[in-house]
C-alpha cells in the first residue's frame, strides 16, 4: 500500500508531488511512461513559460527542469518508462515496465496527471488522398525539436492554436517556407503574442475563415486546396485555391487523455472531456484527484502548475484526514461561458474558479448569481476562447448559496 501515486510526470505530476510532499506526505510515487520527466514541455523548446510562476521567461525544458530539480532534492520517488494500464475505483493501479513486468499497487490516493493528446486527423473530413506529409503539429514539433528532423520544406498549417503558430515559426527558422496558416473561425485560438512573434515577424499569412478542402498527391503530398468558408463554416466553391506544398500540419485541438479515468468510472464532463471536480480537484471517485491538461486543456503551463499544487495539497489532506464533504454547490455555465473548473464546490472556503468563454466578446460583464441575486460581477474589456479567465469567490459568498450560475452579459 502506497500513500500517494501520481500518474504522469509532466509539469502537473511533478508540481502535485512537490505540493503533497510539502504538505507532509512522505510516501509518494510518480509513474511516467516516457524516459524522462517533464512531459510535453521537453519538446516545447520556445520561450514564454514561467512568467506567472517565476517572473522570468523560460523555455519549456527549463521550466520542467525547475520542477525536476525540486523532485530530486525532495527525494520523491519516480519510475520512468512505466506505463499505467489500468486503475480501479478502489485505487488499484496496474502498470508495466521492462524491469518489473506487469505490477499492481494499491494507493490511499491517486492524482491523475496524464496530460492531453492531439485530436487526430482521422477526426477531420477532408476530401482527397492520404499521402505522406500530413502530421499533427505536435508530432512535427517532436520530430524537429527532439530528433532534429525537418518533415518538409513547403508547409501549410491548418488551425491557428498556439501549437500551430509556434510550429509555423519553428519550421520557418529551420528553413521551410510556411505558405499559410488557415483558421476556420474568424479569430485565432492562439495568444495574440504568438500571432505577432510567430506569424507577423516572418510575414506568414493567417487566413481566417479558411479551411483545407482537398488534399492532393499520390505517395507524397503535392498540394492542398483551401477555400474561404461562409457563416455556417461551409466552404465557398468560388474561393477554392490550390497551394503547392509537401507538408500539411494539423493543429486542430487537444483533448484530455482520459482512457484511464474511464476505467475507474470517474464522472467526466462532456464539455472539457476531463473529470468533473470540486475546488480541491477531487473527482467523483473518492481519493482520486486530477490536474493539468488531463482535467482541461490549459494554454499556460503556469496555470497547470498552480492547479497541480491544489491537487497535491488536497490529496495530502485527504490521506491525513479523509474526505469531509457536507454539501454540493453546482456551478452552471450559461453557454457563453463554456465551462468552469471546478464544476462543483463542496466546502465554504475562498475558491478561484477558472473558466473559458465560447466566442470573442468585447465589453462584457461576468455575472455570478445564486439563481436569483447577483453574488459577484466583473466587467471585462475583452474575452476570447483561447484565454482562460479566473475569478475568486469568497467563503462568505459561497456559504449562503445552493447553486452558482456563471453568466455573461454582452
Amino acid at each position, binding site marked *: 500500500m502506497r500513500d500517494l501515486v501520481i500518474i504522469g510526470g509532466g509539469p502537473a505530476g511533478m508540481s502535485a508531488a512537490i505540493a503533497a510532499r510539502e504538505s507532509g506526505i512522505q510516501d509518494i510515487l510518480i509513474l511516467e511512461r516516457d524516459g524522462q520527466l517533464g512531459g510535453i514541455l521537453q519538446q516545447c*523548446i520556445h*520561450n514564454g513559460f514561467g512568467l506567472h510562476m517565476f517572473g522570468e521567461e523560460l523555455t519549456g525544458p527549463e521550466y520542467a527542469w525547475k520542477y525536476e530539480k525540486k523532485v530530486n532534492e525532495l527525494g520523491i520517488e519516480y519510475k520512468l518508462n512505466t506505463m499505467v494500464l489500468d486503475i480501479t475505483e478502489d485505487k488499484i493501479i496496474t502498470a508495466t515496465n521492462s524491469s518489473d513486468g506487469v505490477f499492481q499497487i494499491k494507493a490511499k490516493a491517486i492524482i491523475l496527471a496524464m496530460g492531453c493528446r492531439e485530436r487526430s486527423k482521422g477526426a477531420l473530413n477532408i476530401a482527397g488522398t492520404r499521402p505522406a506529409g500530413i502530421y499533427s503539429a505536435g508530432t512535427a514539433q517532436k520530430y524537429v525539436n527532439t530528433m532534429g528532423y525537418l518533415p518538409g520544406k513547403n508547409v501549410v498549417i491548418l488551425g491557428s492554436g498556439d501549437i500551430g503558430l509556434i510550429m509555423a515559426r519553428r519550421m520557418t527558422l529551420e528553413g521551410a517556407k510556411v505558405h499559410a496558416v488557415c483558421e476556420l473561425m474568424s479569430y485565432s485560438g492562439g495568444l495574440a503574442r504568438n500571432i505577432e*512573434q510567430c506569424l507577423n515577424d516572418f510575414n506568414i499569412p493567417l487566413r481566417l475563415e479558411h479551411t483545407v478542402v482537398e488534399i492532393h498527391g499520390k505517395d507524397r503530398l503535392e498540394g492542398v486546396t483551401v477555400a474561404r468558408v461562409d457563416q455556417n463554416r461551409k466552404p465557398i466553391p468560388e474561393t477554392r485555391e490550390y497551394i503547392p506544398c509537401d507538408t500539411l500540419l494539423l493543429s486542430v485541438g487537444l483533448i484530455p487523455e482520459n482512457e484511464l479515468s474511464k476505467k475507474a468510472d470517474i464522472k467526466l464532463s462532456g464539455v472539457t472531456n476531463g473529470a468533473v471536480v470540486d475546488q480541491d480537484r477531487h473527482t467523483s471517485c473518492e481519493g482520486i484527484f486530477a490536474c493539468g491538461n488531463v482535467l482541461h486543456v490549459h494554454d499556460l503551463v503556469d496555470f497547470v502548475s498552480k492547479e497541480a499544487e491544489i491537487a497535491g495539497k488536497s490529496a495530502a489532506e485527504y490521506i491525513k484526514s479523509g474526505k469531509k464533504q457536507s454539501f454540493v454547490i453546482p456551478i452552471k455555465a450559461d453557454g457563453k461561458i463554456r465551462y468552469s473548473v471546478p464544476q462543483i464546490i463542496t466546502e465554504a472556503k475562498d475558491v478561484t474558479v477558472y473558466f473559458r468563454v465560447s466566442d470573442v466578446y468585447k465589453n462584457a460583464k461576468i455575472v455570478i448569481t445564486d439563481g436569483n441575486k447577483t453574488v459577484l460581477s466583473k466587467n471585462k474589456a475583452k474575452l476570447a476562447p483561447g484565454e482562460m479567465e479566473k475569478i475568486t469567490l469568497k467563503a462568505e459568498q459561497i456559504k449562503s448559496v445552493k447553486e452558482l450560475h456563471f453568466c455573461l452579459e454582452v
Partner: protein
Amino acid sequence: MIERKLTCIVCPLGCELTVTLEENRVLEVRGNTCKRGEAYAQNECTNPKRTVTSTVLCEDGCTVSVKTDEPIPKEKIFECLEVINSTTARLPIKIGDVIIKNVCGSNIVATQNRSK
C-alpha cells in the same frame, strides 16, 4: 506624427499598444497594462529584438535545445541560426552551459541537460 499599432509580446496578456511616433521618436504609448509594455514599444519602434530558440546537434546525433541568453536584433535571426546549425556540441551538457560564444551579440546557451 504617426500612430503605430503593436501587440505587446512580453507576456501572455498580449496588450494592444498604440504608439505615437515623430521621426522615429516615441512620444506616447497607450494600451499597455504595465511598464514593460512601454519599454517594449520603445524598443520595437527603434531596435526590435527577439530571443531565438532552436536546437544544436550533439556529437552522438541527438539534439539539445538552446536559446540566445539575450534578445538579438530581429534582422539577425537567420544569421544567428546559420551559426547554430553549423555547430556540433560536445557531451555532456548541463542546462545553462554556453554552447557557442558571442553570436550576434549574445551567447547560445543550453536549455536542457544531455548526458553522454
